């Protein structure tokens, strides 16, 4: 492919290839300054986060309506969830939120080692969340027949609308788990860029900051999902 240079191509400052990536970073030329670019990227990302909130708003709305229609089914379904695993996952995500915030602070202070340590802890937490979700929550429940919709096959159900509860449960937590995986991929990409190119430092950490924001959102949604799903009385 013949690459045709355009005005968007970055122009690394010449003769200084050994400098870390964040020092060599030049803002795209349609912005007046790197600060303008950073602000634009953050505004764009906050808008994107708003769309994510609205996406989950649909699920929360469906939850509210069906809980109002079938409170007993929701109570019965909720009782068969294990608060211990849900609680553990909440703790795991809260820890990861702290470490991702620390990693951004480390980038601002140019502490690359601790930036990497924090990101690795975050990624381990993300993996732990997904593993707990699938091996200790989805797995056993699916095997017992507690499945969504027509797949529901649990012989000891106490309310005819329990399949709806499981549909809401699997849709909400499943879409959330997908977001955990996407967030972990973003942070893993940040880790790679930081290790390989020393990409983030005091003057340039846009991608890391936005990935961190995404991770906080994923965390925040779980903070709402956990009591709504696990703590119904």
């Amino acid at each position, binding site marked *: *492919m*013949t690459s*045709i*240079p*355009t*005005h*968007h191509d970055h*122009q690394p400052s010449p003769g200084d290839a050994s400098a870390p990536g964040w020092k060599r970073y030049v803002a*795209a*030329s*349609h*912005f*007046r300054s790197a600060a*303008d670019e950073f*602000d*634009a*990227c953050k*505004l*764009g990302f906050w*808008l*994107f986060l*708003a*769309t*994510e909130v*609205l*996406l*989950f*708003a*649909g*699920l929360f*709305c*469906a939850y509210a*309506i*069906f809980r109002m*229609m*079938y409170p007993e089914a929701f109570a019965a379904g909720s009782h068969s969830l294990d608060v211990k695993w849900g609680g553990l996952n909440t703790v795991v995500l809260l820890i990861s939120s702290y470490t991702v915030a620390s990693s951004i602070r480390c980038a601002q202070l140019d502490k690359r080692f601790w930036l990497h340590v924090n990101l690795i802890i975050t990624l381990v937490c993300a993996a732990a969340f997904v593993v707990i979700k699938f091996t200790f929550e989805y797995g056993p429940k699916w095997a017992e027949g507690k499945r*969504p*919709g*027509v*797949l529901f096959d649990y012989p000891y159900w106490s309310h*005819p*609308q329990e*399949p*709806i509860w499981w*549909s*809401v449960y*699997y*849709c909400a937590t499943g*879409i959330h788990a997908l977001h955990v995986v996407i967030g972990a991929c973003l942070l893993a990409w940040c880790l790679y860029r930081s290790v390989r190119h020393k990409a983030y430092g005091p003057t340039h950490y846009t991608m890391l900051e936005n990935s961190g924001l995404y991770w906080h959102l994923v965390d925040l949604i779980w903070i709402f999902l956990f009591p709504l799903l696990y703590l119904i009385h």
Partner: protein
Amino acid sequence: MSTIPAAHDTAHGHHDEGSYLTPRGPFLSTVVAWATTIDHKKIGVMYLVAVLTMFFLGGVAAMAVRAELWTPNRYVEQVQPDGTTQSVLQGDLLGKLFKADGLGAANNIYNRVFTLHGAIMVFMVIVPGVPASLGNFFLPIMLGAKDVAFPRLNLLSWYIYVTGSIFAVLSIILGGVDTGWTFYTPYSSTHAAGHWNVVFMILGAFILGFSSILTGLNFIVTTHKLRCPGMGWFDMPLFIWAIYSTSIIAVLATPVIGITLLLLIFERLFHVGIFDPAMGGDPVLFQHFFWFYSHPVVYVMILPGMGIISELIAVHCRKPIFGYRAVAFASLGIAAVSFIVWGHHMFASMGELASAVFSFLTFLVAIPTAVKVFNWIATLYKGSIAINTPMLYAMSFLFLFSIGGLTGLPLGALATDLHLHDSYFVVAHFHYVMMGGTIIAFVGGLHHWWPKMFGRMYNEKWAMLGCALVFIGFNVTFFTQFFLGTQGMPRRYASYVDEFQFLHQVSTVGSWFLLLGFLVHLGTFIHSLVAGPKAPPNPWGGLTLEWETESPPIEHNFHHEPILKHGPYDYDTTVPPHYDPADYPLDTTTPPHDSGH
């Protein structure tokens, strides 16, 4: 700040030669350069081509719908040569074309064709049409910027649009869907024919949503962050205000249809039961979700059209727009009200109080909309009106959109809606708004900005003839449908009683004129590209920033970062840049603004 243009001038100085359209290299590398471009102008042109392709597909389906309705689908008793009578199926034009067996199958084909028309025209033409093509091309230039805030994301949006469209076309090739473009449950989740057809069509709409969100997000950030020096919020052209308001709706409403369509796909594939009444689910919940997106999106469709009309009227009657701030805030007002009126699509399934509240809220939309229409008319008053194609389209818009808007009121009122809902009155109403509004504005805007986009003038006489044919054809096609609706012709039927046949046939004849009009435009545009005279930088004497650069614009839009020194419509005080009065003969006998002030 002045160092930035200097830096790129030295680095890429050779690019200042020629426009963004100038091929740089052999054919294949030019194609690759277009496919990987992050230049908003090329992406705008790519969107234009993609949208017009889908418009053609949706148009073919529309012509098929009208042709089918020439005669009703029904069995007729015929006396055979041997003296016996036999039932013979008549009027099933599409049924015969696709070799359908019997009345049910023939009607089913009709259902698929109108669904195809609706889904393509809504999701792939009218929603992305103006913002993604003209908006992409002109929003950065009108702001005095070099590009949108996130150029790569912009290219990604285009590829997402194409991917979504491919899924929709795949669904059509597999046999299409018969759900109607609204995909109402439980029909769409359980009964509708063709399992994968439905999944692919919904998946296509789901994917297209991401394209809307990313484009909207890009435009909002661009408007906030990339206005040129000197341009405050109230120095922006009204087209930008409209695109900005549109983007807010697209960003805030589209995620809801995203989750809705995702749940519908789960429903279809795994029968999760959320929308299935047989399992305790709620099909009306789908309608609420669907219209929470799809009603605001009606304003995603119309607001950019209104933005275009503000430009066309101000430029082609050479007068400051009347009530600039009112028009700008009306855009935001429409965007705000759009989120609280969705219930008027479900009057029948809500309680009386909720219906009355939604009916009242629906009337609120009429206020900012009427503010705009009155301001446009006040702008025309004592202006130096040039009768050319963009102006004719702007006037067509005022006429058609007013009819579309006013016929919305009886549909928003509970008592009359009881009689009119799901009839051809509704079909006529939304075609007057969507086509008489958005598409007419789109085609008008295309003529207005065509010289700027492609650097060529078009033949004004042929373009005006095309406009006349479209205007006449449109009214003949759809005005008749108001009568059909009030007389009781329900929408979405392939058959009807004999009393309706005359009006249906008039409507079908109108659709042929409409087709002819668009073919004339297509010919005019192709002729312009091949043999049109070269366009001057400012053929109409406009004052917004896109007229300050060359036609077509250079790759960086401007040679130097522009500094705004005048408002977008200060015709009283400013001489238009690069303007040759010979291009635009004004009526010099009466100075335009000597009285009335």
